[in-house]
């Protein structure tokens, strides 16, 4: 696998595209430039050149997930149209997952600000209100605390609401409902009530959105007992996690990222559901385990290219499940590489990285050859100025430097 990646790294003389399915790369390289452009998957993140990740390897939940297109694409010189799967953007993948679940179960409903007629501020729910009606795709007033509470009350009665926060930061207003009612009701009622809600929304540092609209709430919610948290990063896992979250009987908080909504990927036509608690092996390697999630995955993969050129072999894992951590995948990786680098977008203090560091130290201390390095955002409110904002989050050169330091 590492050799294929070398191939990818070497051949990226193309402008701004890298394939997600590396096996396809072989066929595509034989074609004319125009066709080649059509068959490659463009994965951009606001002008920054990024890599796509490999599909998850590992057979643990093979029976759940239909393997992505890579396995089937063995027909040489196939035309673009007959390739299995279909291409779409991340927000469309979310919508597809949502629509499939709403079709499948009449109890699934959506509520949030501007999800109905407006179609969602990031277009995730576009067209759904026209299809399912105003009650099932409910436009709420700006009252996060109460409509989150309403969603939880409806869930107690057997519905399966999906509550959208227009920006994750707004859900701070609903913290009481999420912590006390959402997380705890199953426990305090002795198991009588289940709360199958999905709370989703975009968070993370965007493009100069300002301090209050660039918050990372995963660190605030991670202590709440009774909830699960997942973060999606590619269209493939966005759709799979959305469906899994809706089908789950537990309250799940699905963290999306403002800058990742326009990622394009080819996903399977068949229905698939991903495992909520499993991490994704993005790039297997030997020298160091890099744990990351959401947007930082792309910074890591970009750094990985540089690292590979310098001769390192990083293993990149997108942890996806922020609560609980997939210590199985992470542990096996650490047993192999003995070095861990965590790259996250949360703040340094009390972030996901801090908890992950503690969890790894507790469980896998014997396997570590070096202290865990955790690269997180600075403990500052996100500034508006572009340059300052760039310095708030972790950038690829920092990741490269950290790996070099770690692997000395």
């Amino acid at each position, binding site marked *: 696998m590492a050799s294929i990646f070398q191939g990818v790294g070497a051949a990226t003389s193309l402008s701004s595209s890298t394939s997600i399915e590396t096996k396809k790369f072989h066929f595509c390289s034989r074609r004319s430039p125009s066709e080649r452009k059509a068959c490659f998957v463009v994965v951009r993140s606001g002008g920054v050149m990024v890599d796509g990740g490999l599909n998850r390897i590992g057979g643990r939940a093979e029976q759940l997930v239909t393997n992505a297109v890579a396995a089937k694409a063995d027909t040489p010189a196939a035309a673009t149209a007959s390739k299995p799967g279909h291409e779409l953007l991340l927000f469309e993948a979310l919508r597809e997952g949502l629509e499939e679940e709403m079709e499948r179960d009449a109890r699934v409903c959506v509520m949030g600000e501007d999800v109905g007629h407006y179609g969602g501020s990031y277009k995730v729910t576009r067209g759904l209100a026209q299809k399912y009606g105003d009650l099932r795709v409910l436009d709420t007033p700006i009252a996060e605390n109460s409509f989150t509470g309403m969603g939880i009350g409806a869930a107690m009665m057997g519905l399966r609401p999906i509550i959208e926060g227009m920006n994750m930061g707004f859900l701070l207003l609903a913290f009481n409902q999420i912590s006390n009612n959402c997380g705890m009701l199953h426990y305090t009622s002795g*198991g009588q*009530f289940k709360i199958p809600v999905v709370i989703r929304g975009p968070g993370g540092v965007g493009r100069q959105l300002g301090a209050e609209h660039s918050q990372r709430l995963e660190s605030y919610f991670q202590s709440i007992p009774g909830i699960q948290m997942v973060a999606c990063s590619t269209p493939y896992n966005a759709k799979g996690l959305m469906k899994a979250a809706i089908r789950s009987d537990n309250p799940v908080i699905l963290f999306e990222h403002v800058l990742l909504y326009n990622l394009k990927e080819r996903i399977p036509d068949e229905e698939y559901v991903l495992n909520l608690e499993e991490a994704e092996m993005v790039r297997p390697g030997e020298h160091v385990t890099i744990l990351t999630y959401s947007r930082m995955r792309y910074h890591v993969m970009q750094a990985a290219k540089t690292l590979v050129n310098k001769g390192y072999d990083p293993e990149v894992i997108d942890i996806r499940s922020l609560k609980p951590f997939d210590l199985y995948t992470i542990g096996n990786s650490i047993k192999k590489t003995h070095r861990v680098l965590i790259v996250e977008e949360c703040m340094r203090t009390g972030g996901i990285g801090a908890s992950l560091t503690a969890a790894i130290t507790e469980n896998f201390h014997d396997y570590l050859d070096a202290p865990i390095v955790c690269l997180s955002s600075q403990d500052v409110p996100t500034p508006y100025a572009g340059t300052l904002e760039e310095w708030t989050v972790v950038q690829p050169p920092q990741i490269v430097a950290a790996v070099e330091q770690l692997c000395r």
Partner: protein
Amino acid sequence: MALAHRSSGLLKPLSTASSSSFLHRRPYSTDDTTTITVETSVPFTGHNCETPSRSVDTNPKELMTFFTDMALMRRMEIAADSLYKSKLIRGFCHLYDGQEAVSIGMEAAITKKDCIITAYRDHCLFLGRGGTLLESFAELMGRTAGCSNGKGGSMHFYKKEACFFGGHGIVGAQVPLGCGLAFAQKYRKEGHVTFTMYGDGAANQGQLFEALNMAALWDLPAILVCENNHYGMGTAEWRAAKSPAYYKRGDYVPGLKVDGMDAFAVKQACKFAKEHVLKNGPIILEMDTYRYHGHSMSDPGSTYRTRDEISGVRQERDPIERIRKLILAHDLATEKELKDIEKQARKEVDEAIAKAKESPMPDEPELFTNVYRKGFGVESFGADRKELRTTLP
């Protein structure tokens, strides 16, 4: 027999004789065909709506049931008081005595498919919804026989089959939940309603008005019931609210002010509200009631109000006394029979407490149960990480 020793000049001549010879003379508690019309103590006051009539129809069976149930509730709360003082109940214990009429009247007007959700003063509402004394006391004492397996406590009584949704510790947070219950009822089009209860203290929470706005916007079948006992812990209502007319606070939402110490007024108002809400959207009911105990067991209840006030209300407006007078006036039972009912209630409560004391405390594995739900098919580890694998379907 014992009866003769107890009789004194205070008792009416009728009851000095042995009670058995009188049983066949009196339509005691089994007759639900005779209609008795009762007038509520005060007329209803309406805001943006018509008031229901002051005359409420009832029957002997209902009257006797009211008395029996309220006596049981009162007894349970007083027993909880002494259990708390003997440190068998810990933490917070908010008692409902004085307010029983709200629960009883409401239950008489609705079915078990209509939902009730309230805050932490939930023991009697739980009983009214069909909860047993054993479940209540066991939960209060933290035993496994409790309604929440001992893991909820005084503030977290729930009964899903009877559509009783608790039991919430954070003041006001149950109101959006209640509107959510009403939303689900509207979604399912089943024709049931939700009674969302809160106190005069919670009436100043912002989420209440947010939820009210949404309920009115979408015509949700939510009835917001403000149990106004005039004190938000130690703060009197006029010190906390610019406008203590809570039934008017809904502005565009109609409201009704009800004497909450009169079970029949409550019954009439709830019946009226249920019909109203299924057609017109939410309504606010303000129950003018009173609690004899302090806010909770750690509050003596006399630092912010006078003992004269408490005893005054007890003498003039006590809900059980009102029913007692009605029963005696309509000659449905003798004083002795009513006292027997109260004794029976005491006995039941004592038995339940004894049984609850025998119930064990939860074991350590219980600590980790019911944190997550398992087995819906997409997990391989189990969310709480205490098990390695769960089976996938």
